[in-house]
């Protein structure tokens, strides 16, 4: 086994992709310096600043330049340092990247990856802590990946880079420096649109994304001590969503809890709940319960932020409600 971190795995996976395919280039603010979370560490040294290019603080132009480069045959991986800043590039992403293939009748391709990171818990305040993936999930033409561990980064980032559609990869700043052991032989790429069952169980299905996967596994451990057998599923990609794996589980357990760190209202949990209630209506023994953050901006104050963040306790409450 190799001891590593999520952030180091991002850098290593990018390096492997750049080695394997000279069309892969990296743009972003401070990427040639390794970035604030070291996710591009070593790339400029290894591949030169012609392919690992620092940009000004111009999110719209960064994203737009990546679209143009992708349309011209490169496979750019661009970084928007915080998902909170994606609003600055949203027109480019939605009206440019996501629609070009469709509007051109299939002529243009935009094989770009936009890497960014979200999540609270680091005392970043309301503009550096958000989870905005549900916006991206609402845009036809974009694929959305949320790796929950170094293993998933290694499995999914290569597939995102190889994809001919624009893919947004939302990483987690909370998980970046979590230690993890990966097999010596590495992790083989896995296709987008496949969920992963992390724990099998009979009594309730918990679907969780990103950091909440770990909270769900902890909740499942505690539930097991109470004799409740929870199945934990990480969808890994929100678009395309592997409904089949989730539905197959719900058919067996009859109960579903969906957990994410984004606000509950308008979050991706609502989409998963809507799909599951339609697919498994007659199998559900209880309402689908959603766990998410309260409907407020992320507070800065440590006590308030800790209270704001959903975690194991909220998942346990939700499971109790689903089993009630």
């Amino acid at each position, binding site marked *: 086994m190799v001891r590593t971190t999520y952030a180091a795995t991002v850098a290593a996976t990018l390096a492997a992709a750049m080695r394997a395919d000279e069309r892969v280039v990296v743009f972003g603010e401070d990427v040639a310096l390794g970035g604030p979370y070291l996710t591009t560490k070593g790339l400029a040294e290894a591949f030169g600043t012609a392919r690992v290019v620092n940009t000004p603080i111009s999110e719209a*132009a*960064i994203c737009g330049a990546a679209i143009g480069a992708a349309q011209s045959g490169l496979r750019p991986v661009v970084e928007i340092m915080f998902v909170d800043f994606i609003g600055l590039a949203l027109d480019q992403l939605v009206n440019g990247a996501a629609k070009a293939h469709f509007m051109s009748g299939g002529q243009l391709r935009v094989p770009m990856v936009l890497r960014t990171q979200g999540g609270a818990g680091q005392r970043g305040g309301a503009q550096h802590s958000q989870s905005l993936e549900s916006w991206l999930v609402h845009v*036809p033409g974009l694929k959305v990946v949320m790796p929950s561990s170094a293993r998933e980064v290694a499995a999914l980032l290569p597939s995102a880079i190889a994809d001919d559609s624009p893919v947004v990869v939302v990483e987690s700043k909370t998980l970046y420096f979590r230690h993890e052991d990966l097999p010596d032989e590495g992790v083989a790429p896995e296709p987008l649109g496949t969920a992963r069952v992390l724990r099998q169980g009979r009594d309730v299905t918990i679907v969780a994304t990103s950091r909440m996967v770990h909270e769900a596994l902890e909740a499942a451990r505690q539930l097991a001590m109470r004799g409740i057998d929870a199945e934990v599923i990480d969808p890994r990609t929100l678009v395309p969503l592997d409904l089949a794996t989730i539905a197959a589980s719900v058919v067996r357990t009859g109960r579903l809890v969906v957990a994410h760190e984004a606000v509950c209202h308008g979050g991706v949990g609502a989409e998963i709940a809507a799909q599951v209630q339609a697919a498994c209506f007659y199998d559900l023994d209880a309402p689908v319960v959603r766990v998410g953050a309260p409907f407020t901006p992320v507070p800065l104050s440590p006590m308030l932020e800790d209270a704001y963040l959903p975690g194991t306790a909220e998942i346990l409450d939700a499971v109790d409600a689903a089993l009630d």
Partner: protein
Amino acid sequence: MAGENGALRQGGGTLDANVARHLLVTMWRIRAFEERLEPLKRSSTVHGLTHLSIGQEAVAAGVCTQLGNDEIVYSNHRAHGHALAKGVDMGRLLAELMGRADGCCRGLGGSMHVVDVAHGFFGATGVVGGNLPFAVGAAFASRLRGDSAVVVVFFGDGAAQAGIFAESVNLASLWQVPVVFVCENNGFAEFTPRSAHTRVERVSDLAAPFHVTAATVDGNDVVEVHRAFGEVLASASAGKGPFLLECLTHRRSGHYVGDPGGYRVASDDESWRDKDPIGRLVRRGATEGWFGEDAARAIEAAARDEVEAAVAFASASPFPDLTLPADLTYAR
């Protein structure tokens, strides 16, 4: 005609009769096409939002006819002229505007989203300024490939007020990529006269702080546009960085077909009619001995015939298949 593009590059030299003739042909094809579009739109044969460039043909002709198929053009919402001058087939362009399966985008894009990759026409956009950074990225790609193929992006004076303009020009300058920003300063941002949306009279003035070489030319003089763009193209091809070429022109039509135009000043429109680029080239052609009046009339007639053939072609094309949305939302 399209096949002649690129071969007509003159590198800033003087025009010969062959090039002058091609410029007139190109402008007449655009003019005849757009004049025919107006009734087609009013009868809903062409639907959607349709933005005309009547009066601005010299810019499209002077720029695009010097570019080969491997030199990419990004356009804006007023794209028909750029597309035709870049070599997009007129029948397929009209079929696109009529939402037909033989359209260059299979009927999915329409007037605001014309794309023809085979001719290096990478597309119009409906968001003002939205394509500016795409061109920077495409030019980055051409430099990385090592071929230094120049990328051209058209924008208007309205787009210069969008933040993306400054971001894109700055990035192009920083990266020193072979992109040419061609501004069609036509006096209006959508429905707003220039005086009401900026105090900057010359968009070229905005380039200097970014260390981008810029020039302003009479955009209704196709000979001048052709000369100026030829110089810029040669420099950009030689890796001398990005350029901005501002062409002063006038949008004689409304923002879109059906625009009541209450914001326009009649006397301005009148004075610009005398500066119409086609009339000027016809007069110049006679003086220079490039072509006589009969030849010019024949060029107009041929253009109008081509438009009628395009109407027949597009009208005969079926509507696209309903499976396309599922097939083309993601690339396979």
